[in-house]
Each structure stands twice: as C-alpha cells, then as structure tokens.
C-alpha cells in the first residue's frame, strides 16, 4: 500500500467520523434552534480544528512508522499515476458537489411553492424535519451546502482508495 493510499484511508475515516458527528448533532437539534448562535459556532470551530489536528497527527505518525519499518523507500512520492488518480477523484467529487447543490436548490424551490400554494405540513419538531418541510432560512441552506461539501470531500478520498486498489 502506497503512502498516498494510507493518507487517503486516514482522511476518509477522519472526515466521515467528524462529518457524521457534526451533522448528527445539527439534524437532531430542535427546529427553532439558532444555527448561527455562539454555541453552535463554537462547536463547529472545535470540530474543524479537531479535523485538522487529527489529520496532521495521523499523517506524521504514518510517515514515522513507514520510515522506521523501511517500507516506503520511494524517492518519488508522487508520479503520473498519482496525479491521474487525483484528477479522477476530484472529477467524482465535482459530480457529487454539483448534485448536492442541485438538490438543495430543488428543495428550497419545492418548499417555497408548497408554502405559496398552502400545501403545508405539520409543524416540524427537529432540524431534520424542518429541512423536509420548511420554512428554510439562510442558516439551513448553509448547513445543506456544508453537507454537500462534506460528501464531496469523502468522495475524493473514497475515489482515491478505489482507484489505488484497482491499480489506476
């Protein structure tokens, strides 16, 4: 397994766990919670810092272990195959991000129409229900876009691993 693949595994696990942690908390909040409030901002900043620190610490640990075991004696850490795999992974992430943005736009328009023509559903209790029924504010749209970005980041690492496993 190459160093690039190991780093991708670490990034995939860290991004998935922290992404799940964040969105599980956001979507289980009461529907009237303030997503731009100081408590939520502090939580988001703490998770973001944790994400960076854990990723860097794991990468450093991997490099130290690789050197001590002597399994990674490559002079060239990145070559044309790594760059090709990177391009394919970014292309896949672009597709996921584009799809996520389209879904957010469709959801906002659908809720707007439902409200305009009085097809309203019962009062939502949690943030997850609110995203399904509306009304959506700027903070809710930001959370949905953040979810699309997180899924795109996970797609990059998952695609890299898939292509490294396949060989190209």
């Amino acid at each position: 397994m190459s160093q690039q693949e190991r780093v991708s595994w670490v990034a995939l696990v860290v991004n998935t766990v922290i992404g799940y942690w964040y969105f599980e908390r956001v979507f289980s909040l009461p529907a009237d919670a303030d997503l731009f409030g100081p408590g939520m901002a502090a939580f988001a900043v703490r998770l973001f810092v944790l994400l960076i620190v854990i990723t860097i610490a794991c990468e450093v640990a991997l490099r130290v272990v690789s050197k001590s075991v002597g399994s990674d004696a490559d002079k060239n850490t990145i070559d044309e195959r790594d760059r090709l795999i990177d391009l394919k992974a970014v292309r896949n992430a672009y597709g996921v991000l584009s799809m996520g943005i389209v879904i957010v736009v469709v959801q906002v328009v659908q809720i707007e129409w439902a409200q305009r023509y009085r097809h309203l559903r019962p009062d939502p209790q949690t943030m997850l229900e609110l995203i399904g029924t509306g009304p959506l504010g700027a903070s809710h749209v930001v959370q949905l876009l953040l979810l699309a970005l997180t899924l795109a980041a996970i797609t990059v690492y998952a695609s890299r691993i898939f292509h490294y496993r396949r060989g190209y």
Partner: protein
Amino acid sequence: MPPTGITNRIRHLRYEKGEMTQQQLADAVGATRQTIIAIEAGKYAPSLELAFRIARIFQRGVEDVFDYGP
C-alpha cells in the same frame, strides 16, 4: 489479457538486467514502485513518456517492451 489491453516484458527484462528490483527501476525512471507494480501487472498503461523512459533503461525500443493486443 490485462484490463488496459497492454502487455509488457518488464519483469523478464528486469531479470535479464541483473535481477534489477522494481524499486531500482522506479528510481531510474522517476516513478513510484507502486506504479511499476501496476504497469507490470497490466493494471496501468503508462504515458508515452514513461514508456520511453522504461524502454531506454533496458536499451530497447518501446515495442520490444510493450505490446498492444485488442
């Protein structure tokens, strides 16, 4: 037939060249060992530039090292 459709004689040529290791070949052509492994297994089709560099190491033409058979 490998997934890329390109076969190669790199393993044989490495053996002929004093049992050259994959790491030595990788260092000589400016690639990673993982890439040499993928090329040898027919999982990755190298760029024209890398194919020429590999052929030059063995002092052969590209067609002596790589072959394409649909």
